[in-house]
């Protein structure tokens, strides 16, 4: 037991160091990309003000933003503020980026968590059914369904759901995380959940195919093993074998895979949030990109990298728990 804890701590430390270097690299690359852009953020900012700006005022804004300083200096300025917890001010929303990220991440987190649990549940169940009925009719049908679904773009599925469930059947509202015309503080949790169902369902449908196919393969491997043959010989039925031998072997790998899929989850939520005008990080990042809101774009990119890295680290730690044979060879 002590060995396990020690090994996990080592994985944790190695991964933390790796995450830090990764984030540093991402911050440099992102900064270079944003600096290389021919789109002038100052002009976009002035256009957003909606008033005419004299050349002197413009120079003042440029001075305040430090646009004319060399990029390296600007990077270190940004980095030192970042370490103090200051991500700058969003040019689009006129508020500190850190506040926007905090507020919108909570919305996104609710959406992604629902979708994550749903897709995991659906995917795992479907995978188990496929594995149990391998090469028979249910398996063949479900496999086709999985392949078709992974070829459908998230945003189009969202559009179709919007059309069917919100416009035609009027079961769900068209968008936003709360009813229109109600103050944010007065929106109840139920109303929030109600507005969450459709986007979360869309997002989860996009990602369950992967986990289902993985579970199918794993379960098939287990069912082909000799200990399952022996269990059959002892007279255990199909579902008992699944419960006693299957689930124990395939649950944790599936969970690991699910943690490792945070990047697709985040990318999918960008699309889903835009279709359902859901006020999360995803709609913020596309708005930031379209309106040349550089501080927000930088902040969200870095944050998304952190999010993905945490997911990957969890997956690595889970691997460490599942398989005692895994030894991290070198960092």
């Amino acid at each position: 037991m002590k060995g396990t804890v020690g090994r996990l701590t080592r994985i944790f430390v190695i991964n933390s160091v790796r995450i830090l270097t990764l984030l540093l690299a991402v911050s440099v690359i992102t900064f270079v990309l944003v600096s290389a852009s021919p789109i002038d953020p100052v002009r976009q900012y002035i256009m957003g003000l909606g008033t005419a700006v004299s050349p002197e005022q413009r120079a003042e804004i440029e001075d305040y933003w430090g646009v004319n300083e060399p990029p390296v200096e600007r990077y270190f300025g940004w980095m030192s503020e970042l370490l103090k917890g200051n991500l700058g001010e969003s040019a689009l929303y006129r508020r500190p980026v850190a506040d926007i990220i905090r507020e919108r991440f909570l919305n996104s987190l609710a959406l992604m968590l629902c979708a994550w649990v749903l897709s995991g549940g659906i995917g795992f169940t479907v995978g188990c059914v496929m594995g149990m009925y391998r090469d028979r009719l249910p398996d063949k049908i479900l496999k086709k369904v999985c392949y078709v679904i992974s070829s459908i773009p998230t945003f189009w599925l969202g559009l179709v759901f919007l059309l069917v469930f919100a416009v035609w059947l009027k079961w769900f509202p068209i968008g936003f995380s709360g009813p229109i015309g109600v103050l944010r503080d007065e929106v109840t949790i139920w109303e929030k959940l109600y507005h969450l169902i459709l986007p979360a369902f869309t997002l989860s449908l996009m990602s369950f195919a992967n986990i289902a196919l993985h579970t199918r393969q794993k379960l098939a491997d287990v069912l082909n093993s000799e200990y399952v043959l022996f269990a059959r010989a002892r007279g255990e039925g199909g579902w008992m074998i699944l419960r006693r031998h299957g689930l124990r072997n395939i649950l944790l790998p599936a969970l690991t895979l699910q943690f490792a899929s945070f990047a697709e989850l985040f990318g999918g939520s960008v699309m889903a949030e835009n279709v359902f005008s859901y006020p999360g990080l995803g709609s913020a990042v596309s708005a930031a990109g379209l309106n040349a809101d550089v501080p927000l774009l930088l902040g969200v990119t870095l944050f998304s990298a952190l999010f993905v890295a945490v997911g990957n680290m969890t997956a690595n730690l889970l691997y460490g728990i599942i398989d005692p044979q895994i030894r991290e060879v070198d960092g």
Partner: protein
Amino acid sequence: MRKVNRRTKVVILTVFMMVILIAIYAFGMLIPDDAAGSFLHAKQPPSLAHPFGTDALGRDLLLRTFKGMSVSMTVGTAASAISAVFAVFVGVAAAAGSKRVDAFINWVIDIVMGVPHTILVILISFAMGRGLKGLLVGIAATHWCSLARLIRGEVLQLRSMQYVAVSRKLGKSGRWILAHHLLPHLGPQFFVGLVLMFPHAILHEASVSFLGFGLPPEQPAIGMILSESMRYIGAGMWWPAVLPGLTLVLIVLLIDKLGDNLRMVMDPYSAQE
């Protein structure tokens, strides 16, 4: 009728699919850019004259969809070709180069995989000033990783083969071995990887232009049509959202199937599955 064996069947099917895809592409390319409609026919549901209906400006959606599809296919082909060639270079360099090169390439792949692709494409598109170039580079930059890993693994495996060892003992240079023993083996991998990357590239292209980062609004990319349809969906106009999207999905499925068939033809091992 004489019995046709499975391989021949697959080959015929593959050729048939290719012909369909090329026909769709050519059809889209032949449609003139300025297929302007008249407001008299605006917002018409599907009919015999306009099988996909018309949009809010009275343009025929069938023509717009296929025009958009051919634009998307051009972008997809170019982006996945760039991406696949890059992947081969990187994969071979990682496997055949020094340990440090390998570690560095793996690190770069970790970084690219560590940022959600949608966000990375948005960033790159922003850095290139939006438009076609940004889209191409963005999609190419996000799709090479898995193929590069695959090719790295393949090269590592090939290098441990006996005939490569014999060749080395016979005094052949590393470059000679690369050209005569390694690259010929990578051909099928490369080609299948390219075709299987293609649908992903098209889906990404559609997503990104849906968000508004792709081609300029005059270019009827498929994502653009769907993004325009969002505005009228509340009013119950279903055809601009459903039919072009369905076309996109069908074409993507077709390409996917084509890739699978090509793999079956080129890689005899996977045909047994």
